C-alpha cells in the first residue's frame, strides 16, 4: 500500500506513459510506408512484415472490431451479426459512388472519373460519413426489436440479422425486388476512389488514390486516420455518462434500470454507434478494393470480428487494436507466409486451408489461459481533476471515528 500522493503520481505517470505509447505508435504508423521496405529486408522476420496494402485491410477490420467492441465490450451485448453493418456501409458506398444507378447522372466532388459518367458519384469522403449515418440508422432499426432480448436470445436474433442482410443484398436486384438495388450476386463495382481531386493536384497530392502511383500508401494513411478517429470517439464515449451507463448495463441490467438508466435507449445507442464505425470502415474498404460483393458478407466475418474482440480483451480498446491487427494479419498475409515457410521446409501443410480452425484454437487457448484477453480492460477511475482528487475528501474529525479503516488504504 502506498500513500495517496504516491498513488496519484503513479497514476499520472501511467497516464503519461500511455499517451507517450500512443504518440509513438502514431508516428510509427505514419512512417510505416517508408519503413516497410527496409523492414522487409531484415533477416528472419523480414518475410513476415505485412505489405502496405495488407495493412490497409488490417486497419479496416480493426476499425470494425473497435466498433463491435462498443456493443460487445462496453454494453455487454453479444452481437453475432455485425457483418450486417459492414455490408450496409459497403453498399452505401456502392450507391453513392459508382455507376450502380446509371439512370441518373449526378456528380459532387467525384475524383478520378469523367464528369459525364452516369450514376451517382459523390465525394467518397462524404460517402464515408453518409455510410456511417445510414448504418447508424440500420443499427437502430435492427436494435429496436432485438434489444429487448437478453443474453443468448439476443445473440441468436443478431445471428439471424447477420444472415438476412447478405441474403438480401444477394437477391435485391431487378429479379428479386423489381428494382436493381444491389446488383445481386455480381455486386457493385467499380466503386469510386478516395482522392483529393483537382485541388489536391495543385498541392502535389494525388487526385485519386486508385490511379496514384502511391495507391497503397494513401489508402493506408486514410485507414490510419479513420482508426484514430474511431479509437478517439470510442475512448471518449467510454469515459462519458453514456459509457458509464453501458458498463452499468453490462454489470447488472436490473440495477442499472433501477438507477435511472433507460435500458432500451442506452443499448440502442451502443448498437447505433457500433454500427456507425462498421459502416464507415465498410465504405472505406469497398472504396479501397473498388467494389462491394455479396460473397464478402457472411457469418464468418461476424465471428472473425468477434474473435478479435475476445482475443484482445472485451472492452479494452488497446486490446482490441492488438487482437484486431493480429488476427487480420494472419488472415491477410500471415498464414500464407507461414504456409510458404512450412512448404519450403518440405512439409505438405497449408495453414490457410484451416484458418477458421486456427482461429478457433486461438480462442480456445485464450479461454483456457487468459480469458480476459491479451490486454485486459483496466477499469480506470474517472478522474477529471487530473489525478489530484485522490486527496481524502473528509475532515479529520470523522476519520477518528473510523477505527476499522486503515489510513494507508487510500
Amino acid at each position, binding site marked *: 500500500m502506498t500513500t495517496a500522493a504516491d498513488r496519484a503520481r503513479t497514476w499520472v505517470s501511467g497516464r503519461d506513459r500511455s499517451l507517450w505509447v500512443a504518440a509513438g505508435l502514431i508516428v510509427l504508423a505514419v512512417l510505416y510506408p517508408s519503413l516497410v521496405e527496409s523492414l522487409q529486408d531484415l533477416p528472419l522476420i523480414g518475410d513476415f512484415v505485412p505489405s502496405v496494402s495488407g495493412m490497409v485491410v488490417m486497419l479496416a477490420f480493426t476499425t470494425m472490431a473497435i466498433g463491435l467492441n462498443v456493443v460487445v465490450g462496453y454494453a455487454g451485448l453479444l452481437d453475432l451479426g455485425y457483418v450486417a453493418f459492414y455490408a450496409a456501409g459497403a453498399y452505401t458506398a456502392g450507391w453513392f459512388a459508382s455507376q450502380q444507378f446509371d439512370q441518373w447522372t449526378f456528380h459532387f466532388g467525384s475524383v478520378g472519373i469523367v464528369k459525364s459518367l452516369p450514376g451517382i458519384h459523390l465525394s467518397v469522403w462524404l460517402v464515408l460519413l453518409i455510410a456511417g449515418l445510414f448504418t447508424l440508422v440500420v443499427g437502430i432499426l435492427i436494435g429496436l426489436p432485438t434489444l429487448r432480448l437478453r443474453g443468448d436470445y439476443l445473440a441468436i436474433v443478431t445471428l439471424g440479422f447477420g444472415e438476412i442482410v447478405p441474403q438480401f443484398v444477394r437477391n435485391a436486384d431487378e429479379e428479386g425486388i423489381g428494382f436493381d438495388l444491389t446488383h445481386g450476386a455480381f455486386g457493385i463495382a467499380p466503386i469510386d476512389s478516395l482522392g483529393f481531386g483537382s485541388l489536391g493536384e495543385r498541392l502535389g497530392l494525388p487526385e485519386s488514390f486508385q490511379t496514384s502511383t502511391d495507391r497503397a500508401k494513401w489508402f493506408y494513411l486514410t485507414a490510419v486516420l479513420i482508426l484514430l478517429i474511431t479509437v478517439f470517439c470510442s475512448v471518449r464515449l467510454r469515459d462519458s455518462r453514456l*459509457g*458509464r451507463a453501458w458498463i452499468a448495463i453490462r454489470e447488472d441490467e*436490473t440495477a442499472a434500470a433501477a438507477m435511472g*438508466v433507460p435500458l432500451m435507449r442506452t443499448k440502442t445507442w451502443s448498437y447505433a454507434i457500433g454500427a456507425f464505425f462498421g459502416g464507415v470502415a465498410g465504405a472505406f474498404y469497398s472504396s479501397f478494393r473498388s467494389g462491394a460483393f455479396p460473397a464478402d458478407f457472411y457469418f464468418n466475418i461476424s465471428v472473425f470480428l468477434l474473435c478479435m474482440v475476445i482475443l484482445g480483451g472485451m472492452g479494452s480498446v488497446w486490446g482490441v487494436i492488438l487482437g484486431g491487427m493480429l488476427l487480420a494479419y494472419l488472415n491477410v498475409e500471415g498464414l500464407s507466409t507461414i504456409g510458404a515457410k512450412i512448404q519450403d521446409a518440405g512439409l505438405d501443410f497449408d495453414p490457410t486451408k484451416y484458418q477458421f480452425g486456427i482461429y478457433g484454437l486461438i480462442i480456445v487457448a485464450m479461454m483456457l489461459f487468459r480469458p480476459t484477453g491479451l490486454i485486459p480492460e483496466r*477499469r480506470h477511475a474517472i478522474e477529471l481533476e487530473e489525478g489530484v482528487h485522490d486527496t481524502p475528501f473528509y475532515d479529520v474529525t470523522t476519520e477518528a471515528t473510523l477505527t476499522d479503516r486503515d489510513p494507508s488504504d487510500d
Partner: protein
Amino acid sequence: MTEQDGNLVEVTDLRKEFGGLVATNDVDFTIPRGAIVALIGPNGAGKTTFFNMLTGVYKPTSGSIVFDGVEVSDLPPHAITALGIGRTFQNIRLFPHMTAVENVLVGMHCRLHSGIIGSILRTPKVRQEEREAVDRARELLVYSGLPRRHRERAASLPYGDQRRLEVARALATDPKLLLLDEPTAGMNPQETADFTAFVSRVRDERGLTVLLIEHDMKVVMGVSERVTVLEYGAKIAEGTPHEVQRDERVIEAYLGKGATTE
C-alpha cells in the same frame, strides 16, 4: 393539502399474481410525506414483490400506484427513478467492477444531460457537468459514511461499506422516496445502530420519505413511525410500532396460533 403533507404514495387494490400464486393480494397502502414507514412480514409475505411493483420491475396484475400525483404502475423502472424513487436491493446489487464513485455517478444518470456529440468533443459544458457530478458523488459517499476508498472497485469493499455505497447510489438519483430492502441484513448490532441513526438523519436532513423492509424488530421499532404488516400477500395490520406490536394477528403470523393466549 400543501406540498408538505398528504401522502407521497397511494397504493390502491394492488394485486400481483405469478401464475396461480397471489404474491400481493389487493393491498391498500399509503406513505405519508416525510415519514419513515416499515414494511414487515414473515418470509414470502410479498414484501419484495411489493417493492418491485413500486419501482417498476414488475407490472401489477391490477390496482394502482400513485406516486406524488402520478400513476406509475405502467412506467418502466428508469422513468420511475426519474420521478423520484430510489432503491437498494435485498441482495446487494452494485456494479462490481466499477469504482465507488462510478457507482454513484451511474445513480446520477437521469439527472445529467451530456449527450453523445458533447461527450466526444468534451465541450466545456460537459466537462463542468462531469466535474460537478464527481464532486457531488464524493460528497454523497462521505455523507453516507464512506470517506475513503472512492476509487476502489465496489466488489472489493467490505460488506457494510457496500451497503452504504448502495444507499449513496440510491441517494444520487435524487429521490423523494427512498426504498431500502432489508438494509441491515448481515450487519452486526453496532453497524445496525449506526445505520438506523443514518436513516433518520437522511430523512431529517434531506427531507426524504423512507420505506424500508426489515426483519430486525429493533430497527423497525426504533426508526419507523408507521408499520405495515404483510402476510401471504395481504395486509394484516397497520399502525404505529406500538400498536402493531400488540396486534394479535401479527403475533400470530410471527409466532403461530396460541402464542397470544399463553
